[in-house]
């Protein structure tokens, strides 16, 4: 219990302390210190709760009462802050204040209802929570450290952006605090409060630069997340006033099973879909790209979107063997397929990452909707691997952008030779995102197995498996294409050898190591974080107890592959074969090495080749439009179907 309050409270205090720093030096030091303490505390918490079953914490009635009031006042205050920000909306964003008022009204009516459910255990810890804590604390902490130097460079580059770094760091730490709140709260009202705080933070951080584009995108994020918020509030209102289930506790909600809890679960799922940027809500995450890179990294990897899928996976037992669950999976599936295809179109590295984030979350949602032990296993490991690899990728792209002055994939040509360390880290990140034997693939493997053993209706799992098969193909294409650019021998070596700034290097190297270690030690992660959780749910009788383990020989072979991936470059580095170097083949017309050739009329022409983006083949706008339409219809059917 103390560890929980420490993590939430310390993050909050750290935010204040950083914001109140007198000068830049002190602030950097405080950010570094606070982020390290948070990361360390998360690790300690993980060690203390290693592989233990869930623990629920009760509070004395007095404390509970005080906290209740604080959260109520906090909720109202939050609404007021949001309404205050709404002074900058344009006409067509009229719905945002309406949504704020609506959700606050719903919440207050629930809180001041005549009979409110008793909350026995407002906080809890289980192994899934521990994993999320690690992700939020360690990955989030590293992102904060990376931000120190990045933001200095950012402001040096963008002279017009007002320097509001003190508030910026406050928001980052507030974000972490509310994420801890989300993962530890069993009290749904409190959870909702933290949920809305993340919405607020993301809005502020996206709109950080204050340009019109940034502000509009910020409001889009706010609006779409508020739709989810209203849905969440409606779920709480249902749990307060509605017939049947009458509880404010998350574990009670889950334990009630699909017969009792489906309606609130589906409503909360809509909130989760909005937060995790699934179609049709995905546009806010793409808009969030205008924010400084640490913000994108935070939103995409360890916080925000992970809060959405965290809740969906938590609710997953409720969806087990229901049509609502199948529809949820299909929404994830449509998102996965559409965004994977659209990502092929993108030249901007950050947009590739954004689309791939949405796609991967889609995959997690697919698993969450299935709700068997195997599917949850896959979903939780996906959350882990995606968080570390994606954070690494974002930070690497951010640093690279500052080093080479571009985030265009084509401009990253030859990074292996120009910036070996950067490129190596990026390659690990990319490999971690999609390739065997790294974690993603493992989760895909289990997902296939889980889908095929689904039994809601005829051909349901096959549908999902087919979507996964077709969606994986473009994933492979755009990542490999990117890797191809990185490993390409540059035809000319461009100058420029600024070292990677220290803080950024610390964050990047740590994340690279974590990605590698997470992949190497995944059986351990599986034993410690996932199995206790699914076993517990199985013991409650919520999901069928199946040993969803990967056979030992598969693990052995995957370890062999991983070892190969590690040892081959090592052997190569120790004993490089000494082959003579020669220019690339240019039909014998080479003029200066591989860089130029003698063209028609004896004119020297520079060699240029670009990747394939298939923009005539995959039309981004059309794909996204139909994807949104399809997913929108599915959501309507899901909510409508359950309500009837």
């Amino acid at each position, binding site marked *: 219990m103390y560890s929980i309050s420490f993590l939430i409270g310390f993050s909050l205090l750290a935010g204040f302390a950083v914001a109140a720093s007198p000068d830049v030096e002190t602030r950097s030091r405080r950010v570094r210190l606070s982020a390290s303490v948070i990361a360390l505390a998360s690790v300690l918490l993980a060690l203390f709760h290693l592989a233990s079953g869930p623990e629920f914490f009760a509070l004395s009635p007095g404390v509970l009462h005080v906290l209740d009031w604080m959260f109520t006042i906090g909720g109202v205050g939050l609404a007021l802050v949001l309404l205050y920000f709404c002074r900058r909306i344009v006409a067509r964003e009229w719905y945002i204040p309406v949504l704020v008022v609506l959700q606050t009204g719903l919440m207050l009516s629930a809180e001041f209802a005549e009979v409110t459910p008793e909350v026995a255990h407002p906080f809890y810890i289980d192994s899934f929570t521990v994993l999320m804590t690690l992700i939020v604390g360690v990955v989030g902490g590293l992102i904060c450290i990376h931000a120190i130097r990045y933001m200095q460079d950012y402001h040096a580059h963008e002279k017009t952006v007002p320097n509001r770094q003190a508030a910026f760091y406050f928001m980052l730490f507030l974000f972490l605090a509310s994420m801890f709140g989300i993962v530890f709260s069993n009290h749904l009202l409190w959870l909702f409060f933290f949920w809305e705080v993340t919405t607020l933070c993301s809005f502020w951080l996206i709109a950080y630069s204050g340009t019109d584009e940034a502000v509009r995108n910020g409001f889009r994020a706010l609006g779409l997340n508020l739709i989810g918020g209203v849905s969440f509030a409606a779920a709480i209102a249902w749990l307060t006033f509605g017939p049947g289930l009458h509880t404010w506790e998350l574990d009670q909600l889950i334990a009630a099973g699909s017969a009792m809890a489906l309606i609130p679960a589906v409503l909360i799922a809509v909130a989760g879909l909005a937060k995790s940027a699934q179609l049709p809500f995905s546009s806010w995450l793409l808009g969030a790209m205008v924010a400084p890179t640490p913000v994108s990294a935070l939103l995409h990897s360890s916080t925000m979107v992970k809060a959405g899928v965290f809740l969906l996976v938590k609710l997953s037992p409720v969806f087990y063997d229901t049509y609502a669950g199948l529809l949820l999976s299909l929404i994830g599936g449509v998102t996965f397929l559409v965004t994977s295809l659209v990502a092929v179109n993108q030249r901007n590295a950050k947009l590739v990452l954004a689309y791939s984030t949405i796609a991967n979350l889609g995959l997690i949602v697919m698993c969450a909707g299935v709700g068997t032990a195997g599917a949850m296993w896959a979903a939780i490991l996906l959350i882990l691997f995606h968080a570390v690899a994606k954070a690494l990728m974002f930070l690497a792209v951010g640093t690279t952008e500052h080093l080479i002055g571009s985030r265009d994939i084509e401009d990253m040509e030859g990074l292996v030779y120009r910036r070996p360390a950067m490129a190596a880290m990026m390659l690990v990140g990319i490999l971690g995102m999609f390739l065997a034997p790294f974690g993603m693939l493992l989760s895909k493997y289990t997902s296939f197995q889980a889908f*095929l053993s689904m039994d809601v209706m005829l051909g349901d799992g096959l549908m999902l498996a087919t979507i996964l098969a077709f969606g994986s193909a473009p994933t492979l294409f755009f990542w490999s294409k990117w890797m191809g650019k990185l490993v*390409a021998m540059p035809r000319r070596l461009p100058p420029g050898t600024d070292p990677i700034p220290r803080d950024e290097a610390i964050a990047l190297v740590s994340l690279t190591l974590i990605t590698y270690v997470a992949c190497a030690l995944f059986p351990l992660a599986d034993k410690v974080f996932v199995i206790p959780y699914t076993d517990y749910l199985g013991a409650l009788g919520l999901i069928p107890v199946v040993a969803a383990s990967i056979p030992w020989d598969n693990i052995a072979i995957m370890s062999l592959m991983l070892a190969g991936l590690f040892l081959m470059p090592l052997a190569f580095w120790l004993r490089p074969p000494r082959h003579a170097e020669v220019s690339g083949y240019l039909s014998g017309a080479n003029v200066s090495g591989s860089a130029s050739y003698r063209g028609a009329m004896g004119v020297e022409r520079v060699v240029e080749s670009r990747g394939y983006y298939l923009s005539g083949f995959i039309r981004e706008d059309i794909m996204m439009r139909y994807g949104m339409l399809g997913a929108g219809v599915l959501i309507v059917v899901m909510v409508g179907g359950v309500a009837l």
Partner: protein
Amino acid sequence: MNTPTWLLAFGFILLGPLVGALLAGLDRRLTARMQSRQGPPLLQPIYDVLKLFEKDTLVVTGLQTLYLWGFLFFMVVSGFIIFLGGDLLLSVFALTVSGIFLCLAAYSTNSPYSNVGSSRELMLMMAYEPMLILVPLGFYLVADSFRVSDIVAGSPWQVLQLSGILIGFLFVLTIKLRKSPFDLSSSHHGHQELVKGITTDFSGSDLALVEIAHWYENTILLAWLYLFFAPLGLAVALPLAFVLFFAEVLVDNTHARLKWSSTLKASWLVTIVFGVTNLMLLPLMT
């Protein structure tokens, strides 16, 4: 996991390339015969590779050799899994990784021809990947396991149940073997607009590595074909697999090359029409 499967798996590592080389030699001979030529000796692919090891190796970048070793390594792992009776889906994944390493090697040389070749190769991978994944899924539905050992011990009727999958697999097999009409990443004959596509800038021992990996790949693909018929017993299954394997040579010699967009569309269409439909109908057939 008993001794015979271990023997088989290590046998694959040692003899796999030999079998693959003979398949390649037979292929060249058959092609020659179809063009009313006599063709090279059966062992010609082996002579070629032994020769390549006698040659110097010229590289554009030293790292290309590393990527090629990756190509070979993961190819061997992929086959090793199959012959060990292990997990077919994992084997597909390893095969994919190895393909990506080949592309990386070609990308790293960064000549326009290698670039076009590897981009097209990736495109082809995108085209065949869904079908390649559907095959283990189909086996899983009939044999209730991804494991090769279980599939081999499955019902003799499985090939009929999976006939759509088999058709789809034969289609993508043409792509995997880089045969016309899908030889867009690397043509057999160099004197074309693509030169040698993906292998343009490999020479000497580097090229030999590619060839050896292709031999392994031939053996692996033959093993995949064999799997469809495996429960019928070696005497029936092996000849059938051979016949289907060499049917690809006929296709190769009777078709002109397609564009990448047609290839992609055609293979996804076939995957859906034959593969997915087959999977959807499976519950009705059992």
